[in-house]
């Protein structure tokens, strides 16, 4: 089957789907099942949700999307049911769902506080993006699986069982170690430097003074843009050598801006932090300027027209 045939097949399928009422009907059936799974037999919400979700599927635009929504509800309901079977369903009190507001920024955790000197202004610390632990974890897992496979193929049967167990334990241990490492690693910005603290048993603290950084290259792959992570490469002011590369940082756009702000406009940071607690009055000087500019333009055009009229007379 060539590529074009596959495309035609998919497109035809979509057209048939849009032309018939199969998807909406299936969507309604799925949410009926979902409500049945989600709520227990005697739960008062069960008939309510059954009817309501069917109505929701009806008003939801897009036939294929109706089906997808139904599938979403059903898969969530299956998961809830499984969780209930295992018995770990928390009842979800208000305190758990909405704890009172809490500021975590602007106050270093003990992990980081020990590396800061007293006069330094702390601007925030961040864990790496979870993709970091997923990447390293899956590589370890891959090696583990390969190891087990090779063991089964090449090692004498009397040793194979022992070796397989050893490889499994080592793999799990390494993954756990990586996970803990990710959990405790921190990327820190202060008004003097950028710091990366790493490691659990062996501790490494790397830092780059902001004064030495001349340019920051900010890279994001396609996956990085989808999942919101990226890497920074900073170079030395004089030698232009790469002095540090930080991978898998979360929300790189915001981090990047924050870093630049710290380097070039420290007063802006002060101003921002100063007014932070008052609820933001969104004064919009930019739009004001635009309006003022437009007014000027209109006035000058009017005066030009008047002047032209005079000259004609």
């Amino acid at each position, binding site marked *: 089957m060539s590529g074009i045939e596959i495309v035609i097949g998919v497109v035809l399928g979509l057209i048939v789907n849009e032309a018939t009422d199969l998807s909406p009907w299936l969507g309604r059936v799925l949410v009926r099942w979902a409500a049945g799974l989600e709520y227990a037999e005697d739960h008062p919400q069960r008939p309510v949700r059954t009817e309501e979700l069917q109505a929701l599927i009806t008003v939801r635009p897009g036939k294929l999307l109706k089906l997808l929504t139904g599938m979403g509800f059903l898969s969530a309901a299956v998961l809830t049911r499984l969780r209930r079977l295992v018995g770990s369903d928390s009842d979800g009190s208000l305190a758990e769902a909405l*704890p009172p507001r809490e500021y975590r920024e602007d106050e270093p955790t003990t992990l980081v506080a020990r590396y800061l000197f007293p006069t330094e202004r702390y601007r925030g610390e961040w864990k790496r993006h979870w993709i970091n632990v997923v990447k390293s974890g899956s590589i370890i897992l891959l090696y583990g699986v390969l190891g087990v496979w090779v063991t089964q193929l090449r090692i004498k049967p009397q040793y194979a069982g022992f070796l397989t167990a050893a490889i499994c334990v080592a793999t799990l241990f390494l993954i756990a170690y990586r996970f803990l490492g990710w959990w405790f690693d921190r990327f820190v910005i202060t008004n003097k430097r950028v710091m990366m603290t790493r490691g659990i048993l062996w501790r490494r603290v790397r830092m780059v003074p902001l004064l030495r950084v001349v340019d920051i290259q900010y890279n994001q792959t396609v996956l990085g843009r989808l999942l919101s992570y990226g890497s920074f490469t900073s170079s030395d002011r004089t030698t232009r050598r790469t002095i540090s590369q930080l991978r898998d940082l979360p929300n790189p756009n915001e981090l990047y801006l924050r870093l630049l702000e710290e380097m070039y406009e420290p007063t802006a940071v002060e101003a921002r932090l100063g007014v932070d607690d008052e609820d*933001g009055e969104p004064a919009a000087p930019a739009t004001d300027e635009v309006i003022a500019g437009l007014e000027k333009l209109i006035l000058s055009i009017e005066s030009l027209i008047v002047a032209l009229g005079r000259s004609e007379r």
Partner: protein
Amino acid sequence: MVDGALVAVLDVLLDAWDGQAEIHGWEIMHRTRRSGPSVYRALDKLEEMGWITASWEELKAGEQRPRLRYYRIVAEKVDLARARTAGHNRPSPRLRPRYGT
């Protein structure tokens, strides 16, 4: 753990309260940009806590179809809801990186 969906749903309901409107489940899903199950889990929780009330859509005579359900935040809980949702998880116009991800 802060429940982001709960905050988002409350935000939408508070908005609707400001406009004196009632909104149904799909509208909430659409405006919060959250998945149906997480929205309905939040609605379940809010209904259980007595923060919201719901009423069935009224059908015209002779109409036969599943009815929508309209939600409205309870008047006494508006201030509490505003206080509790303040500062949670909303993208702010200022630079404010989230803590880890």
